[in-house]
C-alpha cells in the first residue's frame, strides 16, 4: 500500500457535495467506502481508541458509584482526606486543586503546540510539547506524593482509618489508571517532541518503529490523547474528589 493512498486528500472531495449536515451524515454512512471523510485513519483510530478508553474509565467510575451507594458505612470525606497542612492550618483538597490546574495548563500548551505544528513552526511546537510533558511529569509527581501520604496514613485497597473500606480500592484503581495514562502520554510527548524538533516531518525521515514518514498531523493526534487525559481528570475530580 502506498502512503498516498492512506492520505485523506486522495479521497473524493466530500466537502464539495451540497446539503445539510444531516444529509452528509446519511451520505457518509451510506457511501460504501470511507465513512469518516476528510479524517485521516490515524485520527479516526485515535478517536476510536479514546472511545474505548471512555468505557474503561466509565466502568471504573460506575464501580465506584455502586460501592459508595451500597455501603452502610460512611464514606471517608475526600475534602478532609486530601487536605494539606499549610502554615499551620488545614486547607481542604489543595493538592488536588493544584494538580487540576497543572493538568489544565498542560492542555493549554498542548493546544498551542498543535496550532504551531500546523503553522510549520517546529521550534515553538516542539518546545510547547516539552512544556506539556513537564506539566504532565509534575502531575504524576504530585500523584506519587499523594499516594505516599495516603499509604503512610494507612490507606490500603481493603481498609482505611476513616470509613468504608472500598474507598482505598476505588482510589487506587481510578487514580492509578489515570496516572498511568498521564505517564504514557509524557513518554509519547517526549518521543514526538524529539521528532518535531529534529525536523523529521520536513525531511521525511522514517519512524524507527513504523518505518513510515510522519506528518504534522501527528501532533494533533497526540493532542487528542492528551486532552482526553485531561477530560477524564475533569470527571474524576468532580465525582471522586468533590462529590
Amino acid at each position, binding site marked *: 500500500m502506498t502512503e498516498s493512498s492512506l492520505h485523506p486528500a486522495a479521497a473524493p472531495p466530500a466537502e464539495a457535495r451540497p446539503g445539510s449536515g444531516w444529509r452528509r451524515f446519511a451520505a457518509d454512512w451510506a457511501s460504501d467506502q470511507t465513512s*469518516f471523510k476528510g*479524517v485521516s485513519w490515524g485520527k479516526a483510530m485515535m478517536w476510536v481508541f479514546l472511545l474505548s478508553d471512555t468505557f474503561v474509565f466509565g466502568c471504573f467510575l460506575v464501580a465506584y458509584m455502586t460501592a459508595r451507594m451500597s455501603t452502610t458505612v460512611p464514606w471517608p470525606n475526600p475534602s478532609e482526606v486530601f487536605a494539606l497542612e499549610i502554615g499551620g492550618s488545614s486547607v481542604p483538597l489543595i493538592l488536588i486543586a493544584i494538580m487540576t*490546574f497543572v493538568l489544565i495548563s498542560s492542555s493549554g500548551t498542548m*493546544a498551542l503546540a498543535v496550532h504551531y505544528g500546523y503553522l510549520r513552526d517546529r521550534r515553538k511546537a516542539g518546545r510547547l510539547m516539552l512544556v506539556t510533558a513537564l506539566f504532565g511529569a509534575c502531575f504524576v509527581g504530585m500523584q506519587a506524593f499523594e499516594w505516599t501520604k495516603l499509604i503512610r496514613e494507612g490507606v490500603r485497597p481493603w481498609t482505611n482509618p476513616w470509613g468504608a473500606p472500598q474507598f482505598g480500592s476505588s482510589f487506587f484503581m481510578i487514580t492509578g489508571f489515570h496516572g498511568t495514562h498521564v505517564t504514557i502520554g509524557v513518554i509519547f510527548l517526549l518521543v514526538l517532541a524529539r521528532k518535531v524538533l529534529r525536523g523529521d516531518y520536513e525531511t521525511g525521515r522514517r519512524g524507527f518503529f513504523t518505518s513510515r514518514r510522519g506528518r504534522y498531523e501527528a501532533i494533533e493526534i497526540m493532542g487528542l490523547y492528551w486532552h482526553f487525559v485531561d477530560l477524564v481528570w475533569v470527571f474524576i475530580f468532580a465525582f471522586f474528589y468533590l462529590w
Partner: protein
Amino acid sequence: MAETTAHAEVGAPAAPPLPADTQHHPVKLYLAVWGWLFVLSACSYLVDYIGLQGWLRWTLIVLFMLLKAGLILAIFMHMAWERLTLIYAILLPPLLVMVFVGIMALEANYTLLTRVLYFGGGN
C-alpha cells in the same frame, strides 16, 4: 458547525498552504478557552472550599464538570469542526454508559436495602 473550517491567521509566518482537512484556528480562541477552564476549575474548587452541601453542591459540580468537558472536547479536541459522522460515532456510544449508571444505581440501592435488612447495618 460540521464544516472543517480553516481559519487563516493574519500576519502568520510564511507557511505552505494548509490542506483543507487541517484543524487550524486562531490562537486567541485557545487562550480564551484556557482562561475559561481555569475559571471553571477555580469555581468547582470553591464549591468544596466554601463547603456547599446537598443538591446545590451536586448541581454546581456537575454543571462546572460538563462545561469544562464541553470546552475541552469542542475546542481543544476540535470536535466542533468535525463532520457530523465523526461527532455522532464518538459522542453517542458513551451515552450508553448512562444506562449502565442507571442499572447499577438500582442494583446498589437493592444491595444497600438487603444489607440493612439482613446484616443489621453491617458492611
